[in-house]
């Protein structure tokens, strides 16, 4: 069973990197970070104060970009059905999808965040906190993406609906994630970790239930 999951995860990860889709959020992220200083001006203090928050918002929005490629293609071409026929459960498939999406989404996003923080003038402890908070949150963001993709699979205008669904679910992540930047060393990172774990834990079940409902 573990071997099967590894096979599925490996296929998804390879596909994401091969199709180039994994770099789309990165490019989006860097564009947002590049545009921001042009919008607010080159005031170093202002950038330092707001830059971390903007990078966090950009990370949330970048989560939305790959939504339509996460679940829908496998449902359409029958891969999901074939996995079920082979005795895998919807929850297992959703869990595998979350892991593979995180592997394709998390590391490139952290790399982009590192590059973008230079544009905001973040350095030292602030940079460390930003990267730590994003690293803690990326599994949750991957989980949210899989959950929303499963819920909206097959719907018209799934992208717009996905955006609406993400906002309330992502607010706790944003509060503690961006909050950890303004109060370094506080408990915000711990709360962020707790919320991240919660989202990761419910994703297989929520997404699995949505996938099972689509099939009936």
């Amino acid at each position, binding site marked *: 069973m573990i071997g099967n999951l590894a096979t599925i995860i490996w296929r998804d990860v390879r*596909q994401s990197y091969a199709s180039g889709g994994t770099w789309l959020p990165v490019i989006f992220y860097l564009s947002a970070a590049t545009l921001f200083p042009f919008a607010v001006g080159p005031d170093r203090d202002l950038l330092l104060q707001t830059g971390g928050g903007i990078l966090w918002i950009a990370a949330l929005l970048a989560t939305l970009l790959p939504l339509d490629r996460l679940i829908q293609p496998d449902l359409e071409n029958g891969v999901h*059905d074939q996995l079920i*026929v082979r005795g895998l459960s919807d929850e297992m498939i959703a869990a595998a999808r979350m892991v593979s999406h995180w592997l394709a989404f998390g590391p490139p996003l952290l790399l982009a965040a590192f590059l973008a923080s230079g544009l905001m003038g973040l350095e030292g402890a602030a940079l460390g906190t930003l990267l730590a908070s994003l690293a803690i949150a990326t599994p949750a963001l991957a989980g949210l993406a899989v959950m929303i993709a499963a819920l909206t699979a097959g719907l018209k205008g799934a992208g717009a609906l996905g955006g609406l669904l993400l906002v309330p679910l992502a607010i706790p992540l944003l509060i503690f994630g961006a909050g950890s930047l303004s109060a370094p060393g506080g408990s915000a990172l711990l709360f962020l970790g707790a919320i991240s774990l919660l989202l990761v834990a419910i994703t297989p079940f929520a997404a699995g239930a949505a996938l099972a409902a689509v099939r009936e």
Partner: protein
Amino acid sequence: MKEEQSTGSDERLVVEALGCVRGERLLFRGLGFALDAGQAGLLTGPNGVGKSSLLRLLAGLLTPSAGNYRAPGTRALCDDRLALDEHLPLAQALRFWAKLDGRSEADAASAMARAGLGHLAEVPVRYFSTGQRQRARLARTYLSGAQLWLLDEPANGLDSDSVSQLGTVLQEHLDGGGMILAASHIPLPIAFDISLRLEPLEELEAYR
């Protein structure tokens, strides 16, 4: 959940009083039949009568609304969807399923050859024609090594040579103790042990 209906290790397919509701419409009910190892069943009936739903149900993709069934632990479904990665060459796309099904590279090569696709192993799936796509679905099914093959219109889009090639492979599967349940409006060149005809329920009711 569905494991209650399909206990897994059975060597036969036994269907008892099975009913299926799709979209608030009763497709069939009280359906009962059995297939032993080495037997084949043919499923016929007009469009929309529930042939595909029955096959999907026996594959474990739908839950029956009534009745129950026992099916062999390993099943393969060949429906109208390819379930292969379009951008990959056929051999690589099949490798994914070979790994999941615990089959070797040689099995994959033999499945492609038996589906008449040996020469297309290195061609990306997206360039396949209708008939080649159908043969790729069949290759995936041959590769599964499953005991029960559930085939939904397996001869769709095949030329007559490919249909007779399909017949040869199906017969080999039966001779090896496998089981086949096929829905087909194109005559398949194998001898079927049972024939099931599904009729639209509304019309049956009208005659009563």
